[in-house]
């Protein structure tokens, strides 16, 4: 149970970071995000993404534009808000620190 919980927490944080990072590159449609995350093997099904996007949007990190589509209903294209960009920068920094921390700690473990 503890293992599960820790894994969930780790994956959850990283997933959010990756989503922000993908959207940070360009205006993005949900299925494009899915494609990338699937490639990165972070996400398996689309259903997981929608609640996350809605929450990030409601927290003010994302904004979206409706774009008419030739194949079906209009699409929501997401971009980072100023705040989202700010958060992404901080997360970038944090990620570097985490990578360093984990590498250092794990290296010590391995050398023992």
């Amino acid at each position, binding site marked *: 149970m503890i293992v599960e919980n820790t894994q969930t927490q780790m994956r959850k944080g990283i997933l959010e970071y990756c989503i922000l990072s993908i959207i940070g590159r360009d205006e993005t449609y949900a299925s494009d995000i899915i494609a990338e995350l699937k490639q990165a093997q972070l996400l398996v099904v689309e259903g*997981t993404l929608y609640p996350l996007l809605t929450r990030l949007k409601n927290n003010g990190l994302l904004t979206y534009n409706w774009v008419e589509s030739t194949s079906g209903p209009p699409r929501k294209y997401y971009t980072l808000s100023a705040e989202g960009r700010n958060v992404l920068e901080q997360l970038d920094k944090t990620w570097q620190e985490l990578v360093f921390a984990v590498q250092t700690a794990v290296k010590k473990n391995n050398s023992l």
Partner: protein
Amino acid sequence: MNKTIIININGFVFHIEEDAYEILKSYMTDVKRHFLNSADSHEITTDIENRIAEMFTEILARDNKQAIVEQDVNAVIEQMGKVEDFEYPEDGQNFNNAGPFNRGTRTLFRDGDDHLLGGVCAGLANYFDIQAVWVRLAFFISFMFFGVGFFLYIILWIVVPKATTRADRMAMKGQKLDLHGFKKNLEDELTAVRGSLSDLGHDAKPFIYKTRDFFGDFFHHLGVFFGSAGRVLVKMLGVIVLMTCFSLLIALIVMIIGFLAYGKMGLYHIFPFNVLEYQLNTVILIAAFLLLAIPLLVVIMLILSAVFNARGLNRAAGSTFLSVWIITLGVVIYYTAKVSADFRHEEKFSQSISIKPTASNTYYLSLNDVKYLSAEDSVRLSIKEHFNNRVILDDDDADDVESPNNVSIVIEKSDVAKPVLVESFSARGRNDADALANAQSTTYQFKQQDSVLKFNRHLEKPLNNLWRNQEIHLILKMPLNAKVIIERPLARYIDNLNIYQCNDINKQHDAPSTTFIMTADGLQCKVDTLVTVKPYLK
């Protein structure tokens, strides 16, 4: 050839085969239920529906066809993911969706997290799945009825264990003891902790919380004492309480059988029953019986289950007991209110009776102690109908219960030269007219036999009239210089004279009568200068 259905997904119309539609419908139901408790549920499901519509459009364009079939729906669902595969549910989301309707059996514990005193009420509320405030209200009301609630509360406090572990608390609330249950419980608890932290300033204030802390400490130490003395003490206490409850219950049962089988006739003039219509006595009796017997029964069963690990109350029985008890409480309250309404107004009327003056200006005041009814009395009271020709003896004992002191006599100076008796009848009723009718229906027997004035001990009311505090105040007005000799049995009915003091002065403590003289200032004790003569002692 298959039948197709036309569906509309957020403004986009699709032809879909019936089988495929059933699958899609159940999938969307799952999705909606999954996000039901999320604040953004509408937005999320709309996003998902839009995406499904888009995928359908793509499929139709790619395969160059017009209807969605089962494989298409399955492919879309695979892409979107089944609800079970959705990861990371949002905060407050009901992941396993057990809901409040699918609960396991509950165990009775005291709730340490939601308590004012010992958490008994909250525990019961958890057990019966109702709000704690109703249980508290029920206890508070029952406090006022012979303190039933108080004793019940203390006993429950002692015998019902407190929920200490997480498993206890979950069993108390009927949550399933599985992984999802634990997770949900933990989340609920964290939310509650956050809530109570913000309420801390508010919570710390009221007096009741301080009192609770004090009592909490007290009972904590009591608990430690019992713990160290072992469960033996608890069991002994259990046995004592159990035996008390059993004997009370048996007494109650014997009483109600006795009353119902034989007691009705003898009961109608005893206090709580003489105010109510005769036919209702059975209802009141049964209500009172249940009101007292149910708590006893519940206590017995709880002790059996708590101390002796026997099978306790199940939930259905508990709910039945509680509802029956509340109904009987309602019945008793209803009739109490009804009867007190019948006592709201008071009316009185007076009449004067002339008393023939005697030549010697001497009057003997005596109590009519004739134990057998006279011929007129028999006719007046319809003896034949009511008593089957049995001989009626005056029942001295019934005096105090039936009509406590409903006759009172005051002796004053008369303004005229002859004695006058003013009879002032009073009674209560639901309105003035009713009260007056109640007063007028009463009769009082006063007789003059030469110089002897005989006062009856009772005010009489017709047999089928109810007790409405019918009273008579007699004002006996005596002319100046009249010699008033009051016989001892009448003394206790006279309000404004200290007959015993007069006897003291005359050193005749056991005198059968006491003599007074009417003066300008009222009745004065006649001090007998010849105390040794004692004319009335034989």
